């Protein structure tokens, strides 16, 4: 029973990793940029949520919606201002730019009055409630995380499968140049992808906030989402969630059954093994280029 209990909490933690990884994968698939600032976007989203509920006194759901919309807008503008000018430059440049964005975001947050370096709490309607089911005790917060992840992934699936914009995004991610030729507005799509990814990150932040509080360095959890994305295969949306859950469960189990210290490195050990055994991840695709 204890194992099951640990696994459930691992899954909900893993869903958070998966959601952040989902943000990486969305951007990576569309623009082949790896966004090292994804964790910071998550942190900004959580701070916006806190600002909405605590400082402005908005109801929970209104604050969530406002935070998501604002972050989507922020992601769009960020792409326009910083990423668009270096489109087509080597991967090195884009990686360093997003690392820089992360540093700036983390630094600026400490300068904003009210946000600062303090730890904040996001008030939720379901704080502290628990559900008992056949001997299992699960906090509602964990259930909300899992439910929200399932809903988001289904929504994204429908979006990419059936909507016009979603299909255009898939085309652009497969071959940018060919997509241009087909009349797809690739640049605008890149902006939209960043908006979507920032909103997903913000959602992850808002879901994580009740578990860990909101503070400047919560974005470092983004470093654990990289292993999740790699395990799932960097270009695969379901892979990101599955990878996240694997990392979350392994981490939770090693925290209980292995000596102290293994919990912090479990994710990284898993990713190194994965890279050695199957570099393309569980759901990754391999393609060879003809010269």
């Amino acid at each position: 029973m204890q194992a099951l209990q640990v696994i459930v909490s691992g899954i909900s933690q893993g869903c958070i990793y998966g959601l952040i990884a989902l943000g990486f994968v969305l951007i990576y698939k569309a623009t082949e940029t790896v966004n090292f600032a994804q964790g910071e976007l998550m942190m900004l989203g959580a701070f916006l949520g806190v600002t909405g509920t605590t400082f402005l006194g908005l109801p929970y759901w209104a604050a969530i919606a406002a935070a998501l919309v604002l972050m989507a807008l922020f992601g769009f503008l960020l792409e326009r201002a910083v990423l668009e000018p270096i489109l087509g430059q080597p991967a090195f440049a884009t990686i360093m730019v997003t690392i820089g964005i992360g540093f700036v975001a983390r630094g600026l947050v400490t300068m904003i009055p009210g946000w600062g370096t303090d730890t904040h709490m996001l008030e939720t309607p379901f704080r502290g409630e628990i559900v008992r089911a056949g001997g299992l005790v699960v906090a509602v917060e964990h259930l909300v995380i899992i439910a929200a992840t399932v809903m988001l992934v289904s929504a994204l699936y429908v979006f990419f499968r059936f909507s016009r914009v979603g299909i255009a995004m898939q085309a652009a991610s497969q071959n940018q140049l060919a997509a241009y030729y087909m009349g797809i507005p690739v640049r605008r799509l890149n902006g939209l992808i960043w908006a979507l990814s920032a909103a997903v990150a913000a959602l992850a932040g808002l879901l994580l906030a009740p578990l860990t509080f909101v503070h400047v360095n919560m974005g470092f959890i983004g470093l654990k989402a990289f292993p999740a994305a790699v395990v799932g295969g960097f270009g695969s949306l379901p892979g990101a969630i599955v990878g996240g859950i694997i990392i979350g469960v392994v981490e939770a189990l090693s925290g209980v059954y292995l000596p102290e210290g293994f919990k912090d490195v479990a994710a990284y050990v898993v990713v190194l093994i994965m890279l050695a055994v199957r570099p393309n991840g569980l759901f990754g695709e391999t393609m060879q280029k003809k010269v």
Partner: protein
Amino acid sequence: MRFIFKTDYAQDLQLFKHSGQAYWYGALAAALLFVPWLLSPYYVSQLTFVLIYSIVALGLMLLSGFTGQISLGHAAFLAVGAYTEGVLAAKGWSFPFSMAAAAVIAGLVGVIVGTPALRVKGIYLAIATMAFNIIVEEVLARWESMTGGNTGLQVGPLAMFGWTAQDEREMYYVALVITALVTLGVVNLLRSPTGRAFVAIRDSEISAASMGINLAFYKSMSFVLSAGITGIAGALYAHRLRIITPDQFTVLQSIEMLMMVVIGGLGSIHGAFFGAAFIIVLPQLIAVAKDYLPPAIGQATGLQPALFGLILVGFILFEPLGLYGRWVKTRTFFQLFPFFRRGMFRRQKTFMKSERLR
């Protein structure tokens, strides 16, 4: 404006392209030799830091700037070098031997990490090295019998053959000699077929492979050399700081090292030195500027990361060649005056090259 009229292939391989260069580098060497006698011990110790960071930057430049591979785990190699030096120095090894051991062990660790990691590309390499860095950090914190855990490891003064570095100045001279040797080594490496192979891999893996360059071998070699050089820097770092703890070697440190080479200028030896000087000088400038800023900004703990990030983004957007590029442009401007044109260094706009297609 100087025209170099080449009459011999050997001229392409000369260490100094013309007598002017030899003159200026000689002047620089003389200045570096005399400078500790003019400065206060504090500035001498900062200069020593610049030299140590320059060695790190040279190592990373070899990997990132010349071979085009990204590493987010170089702080781990610095740690391996530093801890090896700390442990061996405590056993009474003479500095040249313990430093060599530090370089070799860091290089060996590089083999272990690099060989699997280099099967994968770009982003995967970045993540693998990052994972490695975090694991090393945890191992250093937990392996208390060897590393002293989180309380840190005390390192004695630098000692070799019965001689001990007594003050800042002697430490500086040791660092200067080693930096000069490493620089010469890297410059010579880049003039050799191996160095040419590195650059070929950076520019295009496909064309490098077509010309018979064994990609896996040369990439691993670059990784190992880079790790070894960083290990040498680690040995000096340990003696300079006298106490080393695991939290000096985090991923953030690795990112700072990458910033160093990017801001200095990827793909240039000068850039390594510019970047190292920059990363040491900027915090000092920030400390001075703090008093003149409004308290909400000046006292914020995030001021330094925010500025570092802004400068990094600014360089990549507006000056991708870094400080060295700025220097070259300024020099060209005066050399060609008044014929310098903006477009001379313009980047070509390209479409995204997919890395998923290999």
